[in-house]
């Protein structure tokens, strides 16, 4: 991966040592990873805590527990995978019967992807719809949330604290409350059932958490960096694009994964705002209807589900290092 973020912050493979208190700020400031051995002073106070946690998490019992949990969590997915390979006739009993009779087939996949019995069983066009929804549905809220986070963290204005709490408080309101008014609004301005309606809805629902998480990260950027940029003549916009964005890449990446997975797997918002038409509806909407009337095509569901999780799996494995780091990013202060 040639992502510039690798150069920005210490190499994540350097181990959890760098997550000690204070080293984060120091690491940003000097670009030095804690992995080379913590330096005295700033970094050492919280280091003990991080070391203790590390010690506990690497004990053999913890490893055994982790393996058991991972196994239990993987069993249903494995079952789904097996089921996706079984012929329609076998579908009435459990997946574990493969141990006695095993006749794998790829028929389900070919039916799901290319479509044979009926034309609208074809997932390909929904696949594209999913991308058209998910990519802007990730980028828009991310960019807006980052701008808001920067403003909340670094631009002093009246009522900043109150407004920030208010934004995050929106997280409490269930999004179901907003579905009908929002749909009425979209229909009123004539974009109901189109891609922009879905994008806007996802943006709205994704913003509060995005702002909150990014704010925590952006606020930890050392103030001197921003002051240095101001003295160097940079405007707020230039500071945002040349300093804040490059330095926030790890957080941006991890939140991008969150949002991407959420939008990709979402059914409710997409179903409401896309109108469920083949032109706009995403994969999940199609999947929900796949079983067909009276469960005629029930045997196709596992294959369809597997097709739909391929993309999230790729995204997750490609960016998992950021995922872990982003989760820890906001929590290392204290």
């Amino acid at each position, binding site marked *: 991966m040639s992502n510039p973020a690798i150069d920005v912050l210490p190499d994540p493979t350097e181990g959890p040592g760098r997550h000690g208190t204070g080293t984060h700020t120091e690491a940003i400031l000097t670009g030095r990873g804690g992995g080379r051995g913590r330096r005295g002073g700033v970094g050492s106070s919280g280091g003990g805590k991080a070391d203790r946690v590390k010690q506990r998490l690497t004990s053999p019992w913890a490893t055994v527990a982790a393996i058991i949990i991972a196994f239990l969590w993987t069993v249903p997915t494995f079952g789904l995978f097996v089921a996706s390979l079984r012929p329609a006739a076998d579908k009435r009993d459990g997946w574990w019967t493969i141990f006695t009779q095993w006749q794998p087939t790829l028929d389900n996949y070919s039916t799901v992807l290319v479509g044979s019995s009926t034309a609208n069983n074809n997932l390909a066009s929904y696949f594209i719809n999913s991308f058209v929804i998910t990519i802007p549905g990730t980028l828009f809220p991310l960019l807006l949330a980052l701008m808001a986070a920067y403003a909340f963290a670094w631009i002093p204005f009246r009522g900043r604290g109150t407004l920030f709490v208010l934004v995050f408080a929106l997280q409490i309101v269930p999004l179901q409350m907003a579905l009908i008014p929002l749909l009425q609004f979209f229909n009123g301005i004539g974009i109901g059932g189109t891609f922009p309606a879905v994008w806007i809805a996802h943006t709205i629902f994704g913003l509060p958490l995005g702002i909150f998480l990014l704010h925590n990260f952006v606020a930890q950027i*050392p103030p001197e960096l921003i002051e240095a*940029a101001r003295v*160097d003549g940079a405007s707020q916009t230039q500071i945002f694009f040349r300093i804040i964005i490059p330095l926030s890449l790890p957080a941006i990446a991890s939140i991008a994964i969150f949002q991407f997975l959420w939008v990709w797997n979402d059914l409710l918002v997409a179903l409401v705002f896309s109108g469920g038409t083949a032109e706009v509806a995403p994969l999940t909407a199609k999947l929900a209807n796949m079983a067909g009337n009276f469960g005629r095509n029930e045997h196709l569901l596992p294959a369809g589900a597997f097709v739909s999780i391929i993309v999230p799996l790729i995204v997750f494995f490609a960016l998992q290092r950021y995922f872990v780091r982003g989760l820890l990013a906001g929590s290392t202060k204290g």
Partner: protein
Amino acid sequence: MASVTYDKATRLYPNTPRPAVDSLDLDIADGEFLVLVGPSGCGKSTSLRMLAGLEEVNGGRILIGDKDVTDIAPKDRDIAMVFQNYALYPHMTVAENMGFALKIAGVGKEERAARVLEAAKLLDLEDYLARKPKALSGGQRQRVAMGRAIVRQPQVFLMDEPLSNLDAKLRVQTRTQIASLQRRLGVTTVYVTHDQTEALTMGDRIAVLKDGILQQVGTPRQLLDAPQNVFVAGFIGSPAMNLFPADVTEDGVMFGTALLATPRETLAKVTGTSVTIGVRPEDIEISPIEGKGLQVQVDLVEELGADGYLYGHSEVEGKRTDIVARVDGRDHPNAGETVYVHPVESHVHLFNTESGERINPAAGH
């Protein structure tokens, strides 16, 4: 190049009773190296940040050249600042760090590269231009921070304790480098430090601050020879000046059993019956024979080669008072002995005990 003027500049943080910087009046000449020095919390950094535009000015004005910059954004002040922790942009190479301001200012790529290279040569950084800050040592980072300021060719350099993150040896080395660089470039510089040695060795003039109030401005010599009050007397100079109360008689001031003849006009400024007397360690004469002066019990002699410092104590007005005196490196009294000390009379500083203000005229001024 430009002069800098603080005209009754005041910074009052919200919800604090006392201004962090109180009506600061300071004129800094074009090309001058001025050091702001004081204990922590004295407002020296705040003063610098006010000049940088990073801190609001609540009263008074600040001028760079003839231009009133009080309410102008930092980017329009044509200044460059070196931060204590250098504040290098971690995602940029050394060259990008140094060229950032020029890039923002829209300077062309080739000119930018040329100016960065020129500054890098000056600071011995040519080999590191492609590196990221994380791959540099502390001293190199410090030089990059300097380079970032130099490349700008600004009207004024602002430096906020740029040496405090270096180890002692490197600090001494860099100190002279910065001072000579500044003299070569001739750019007006305001330098903040809490280290009086740094102030004395680097500054053309030094401004001493305490609790947001300017105590004295002057050349290092002036501050050493004629401190205006007890605070400056005790703060500037190492080891610190000996300061203790002394009784006043009709003819002068009593230094132990010795009478220091004091002009009448000086005695007229005394309130009460005592003054605070100040003598630098190097202005103390020692004799082992009982005579006129202060009786001092020697506790320790610090050997520093050519010189030594004698640390002792004496009873002054019933209280134990520590006395430091410079002695010859080889020939000096030893710990446990009793000696008599007497000041070089032309280098005695007298201060009003209540106000702390200087009352006698300084030698040679």
